[in-house]
């Protein structure tokens, strides 16, 4: 039986750690280090704006030119394909459980047609000590509520302390000397081809959620131990535009070249559990297996589940030509794309 009195007594015995308040006070009393935007960068930004005035008028943002590195990192063979990684620690506990993934060569023509026109230049910097953070470019898909950011962290003596999973995902361990992050729900990967000892190039997939809406996206850099004293770049996302998307199942599924958004309850799916199977079927008979838990395959770069509304967003590790798709299978049910 559910004994309410026992439950209340049990919960009452739960307490936050005693040091939290002191830590909060210590953090909030620290003085933020000033950041400088170098004159050279400021001038370059002005020149970029003047040259791209026509582009601004046409699509509402400054187009990011020469995106080949970005496109390769996000959608090409940034890392090798893998059969998956399952690792246990010395106590027999599962510590890594990464399903198989496949990275394909980038189709440049598809990338230039479907994604490149929507990449916007940012060119903003923040400085923290000897570290410089530069947000280079981004893409936002308002229909999906998702996008990507391309950015870098630089230090003249080298950027160290980060770790990279086999699938390219980057994270900062507790003892890292520096910490960089976005305030959006998302996942960050290393651009393996562009990164050097002194320049860390990063690819972040993000979704706009309750805390971070399209008007409040930030990228920050700061002390690895403190993680709250940070210098920040604010990124203005375009209010409209974005890659062309298609809707299936009376709007319950939205597909774009960079991701898929699914309204779980509209498809009769549970509102708070992950979707275990999503396969995109092309008209030529080939498939893009985005998720197949039974087969231990995952080719998504980020998955976001709003447990209350049942909205599920998944971003792709390749560009999908939605005009070449025939149908999508979700949890065993096939949803055809409407014929033109």
């Amino acid at each position, binding site marked *: 039986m559910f004994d309410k009195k026992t439950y209340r007594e049990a919960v009452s015995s739960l307490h936050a750690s005693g040091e939290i308040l002191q830590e909060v006070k210590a953090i909030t009393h620290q003085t933020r280090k000033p950041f400088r935007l170098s004159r050279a960068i400021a001038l370059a930004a002005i020149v970029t704006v003047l040259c791209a005035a026509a582009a601004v008028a046409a699509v509402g943002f400054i187009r990011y030119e020469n995106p080949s590195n970005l496109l390769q990192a996000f959608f090409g063979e940034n890392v090798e394909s893998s059969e998956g990684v399952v690792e246990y620690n010395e106590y027999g506990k*599962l510590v890594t459980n990464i399903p198989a993934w496949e990275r394909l060569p980038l189709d440049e023509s598809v990338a230039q047609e479907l994604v490149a026109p929507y990449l916007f230049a940012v060119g903003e910097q923040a400085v923290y000590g000897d570290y410089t953070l530069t947000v280079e470019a981004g893409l936002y898909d308002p229909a999906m509520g998702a996008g990507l950011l391309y950015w870098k962290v630089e230090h003249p003596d080298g950027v160290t302390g980060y770790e990279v999973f086999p699938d390219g995902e980057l994270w900062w361990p507790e003892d890292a000397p520096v910490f960089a992050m976005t305030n959006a729900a998302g996942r960050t990967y290393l651009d393996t081809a562009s990164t050097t000892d002194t320049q860390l190039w990063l690819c972040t997939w993000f979704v706009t959620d309750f805390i971070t809406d399209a008007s409040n996206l930030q990228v920050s850099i700061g002390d690895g131990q403190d993680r709250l004293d940070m210098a920040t770049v604010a990124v203005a996302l375009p209010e409209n535009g974005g890659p062309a998307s298609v809707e299936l199942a009376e709007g319950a599924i939205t597909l774009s070249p960079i991701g898929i958004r699914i309204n779980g309850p509209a498809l009769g799916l549970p509102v708070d559990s992950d979707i275990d199977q999503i396969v995109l079927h092309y008209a030529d008979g080939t498939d893009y297996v985005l998720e197949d838990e039974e087969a231990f395959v995952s080719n998504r770069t980020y998955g976001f589940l709003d*447990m209350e509304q049942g909205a599920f967003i998944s971003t792709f590790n390749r560009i999908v030509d939605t005009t070449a798709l025939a149908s999508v299978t979700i949890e065993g049910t096939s949803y055809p794309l409407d014929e033109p």
Partner: protein
Amino acid sequence: MTEQQFTPLARRYMDTIFRLAFHYTRSQAEADDITQEVLIKLYRTDKAFESEDHVKHWLLRVTINACKKALLSPWRRTEPMEDHTAALPFPSPEHSELMDAVLALPARYRVPIYLHYYEGYSCDEVAALLHIPGATVRTRLRRARAMLKSDLQEAEHDV
């Protein structure tokens, strides 16, 4: 917010934030992290609160959002939940067993359980906090009680 305003509020609601975060994450360490994050947001907010209820409601909403972000990496950790409750100082084994049963419920059940039975919010107030219909809250509470009844009876038979 001034320190004079912040400190009493932080002391008053720290455990509230922690307990809600614990019901979401089922991890004391993550719940502590979220508590710290939310308190920092409280300190830095320039929001004008109309009442204590307004503050608490705001804190709970911010905590809910922070917890949802914390739950977005399904592949990396597989630590058993029992490892976390085993280290907690419950008054008796009966209390520990009941908390294990509640924490074993899916999040969509255990969070309304906490907000309704511990914080004392009505179903409609829980619905407003979680941005779901009131009828959904009532259904989830009913199902949660049924699942707990079944789980706890099974546990009795196992002893």
